[in-house]
């Protein structure tokens, strides 16, 4: 499967090679489609491709990291 997500990085995670670690940890293809990195935050549009369960596990791993927020590319879907 191919999953498209935004990763939001807090200040303390901006300088960490999180996507490199992800690809080391899981057998997935990572494809950065947009990125904006500033001193105090980072935003990366990422495509993650691989076996469904591996992609899902890789997203769980990302979510478990402090200072990294995983969002669907639609961002806030739930409206008032």
């Amino acid at each position, binding site marked *: 499967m191919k999953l498209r997500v935004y990763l939001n990085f807090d200040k303390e995670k901006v300088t960490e090679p999180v996507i490199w670690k992800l690809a080391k940890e899981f057998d997935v293809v990572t494809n950065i489609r947009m990125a904006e990195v500033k001193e105090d935050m980072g935003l990366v549009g990422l495509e993650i491709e691989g076996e469904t369960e591996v992609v899902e596990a890789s997203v769980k791993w990302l979510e478990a990291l402090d200072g990294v927020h995983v969002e*669907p590319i639609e961002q806030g879907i739930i409206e008032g």
Partner: protein
Amino acid sequence: MSESIVRALKCRECGQEYDIQPTHVCEFCFGPLEVVYDYEKLEGKFTRELIESRPQNMWRYKELLPIDGEPKVGANNGFTPLVKADRLAKALGVKELYIKNDSVCYPTLSFKDRVVAVALSKAVEFGFKTVACASTGNLAGSVAANAAAAGLESYVFIPEDLEQGKVLGAGIFGTNIIGIKGQYDDVNRLCSEVAGKYGWAFVNVNVRPFYAEGSKSMGYEIMEQLGWKAPKHVVVPMASGSLCTKIDKSIKEFIKLGLIEDTGTAVYGAQATGCSPISKSVKDGTDMIHPVKADTIAKSLAIGNPADGFYANRVIKESGGWCEDVTDEEVIAAMKLLAETEGIFAETAGGVTLGSAIKLIESGKLPKDESIVLCITGNGLKTQEAVINEVAKPRVIGASLKEFDVLAEADGVQ
């Protein structure tokens, strides 16, 4: 006037264009897609007279909404009153104030009836039989009602702990309501996955570019109701930030088409302090939106990571507007002020808009001697829990004139 002037879907980031289809993000850069038009095709044809000759609903501006021909859903939606709010103006010390009152929008008493009408009309055009949304209130009710009236199957996703009143507001229309357990982020992501997997028109996902365009009708109406001119200042509540950008777009379109003069309208954004990522970005002078965990009584504005935040920020800055945000107490005080001065019971988002406007006036960001329009987007009957303890309890007397005389005398009634 049957020829559509809709040209394409265009990426707001990289400019890539796509044919009209149910999709919402750019395949290249994930940027959001927006409907773009060939305005020159309307030159000389789309006049004030033509618009005024049509029924009073949002479709009197149909050439500027992304549908083919006549609307398939929500034919009577929109065209709400623009109230000249003299008593409120006096209370705020301003000269010219109007309330665009979408708390009485047909059929479900919120401005969502505008966006949903366009989204579902487009869904029918695309051949969808089932429509869906993820919502905590107004959107759920609007999708359920408009789908019911159009004979469409609908699915509404809500957090499992949503108040009973809001569940009822959608459930009565016979929709399929799915309560989802989990934190906001989990529920949000699941909805994205459902939208991607099932062949439905998910109004705020795959038909979002069309859906969002419906908001422009609020701006068109304001300009027509002001006597074919734009206000100098307009204050808009912000959740995703979409309405803010679409009000601005509506004004630019009317100027482009020669329907109004360009009087340099400034757009102001209003948020609750407990969920104010756009307001904060404007005040901090940055264009980066830092996501937040929402904590506010203004639930209809509680989007912590607003998809259109960046674009709303830009519109506000470029138009010469500003942002403000208000506490829950200020929201309630503003709801009461609006009700007591103008007889309008707005939902909490209305309290956010008025409360923010009050602060903008106090700080001098909103001038007191120029026209101001406040956009009220939903009805207070839907968020009664916010003010239930703020309203005076009835004074109970026996069924005797004597007892009432005593009470009246105490009130100073002659």
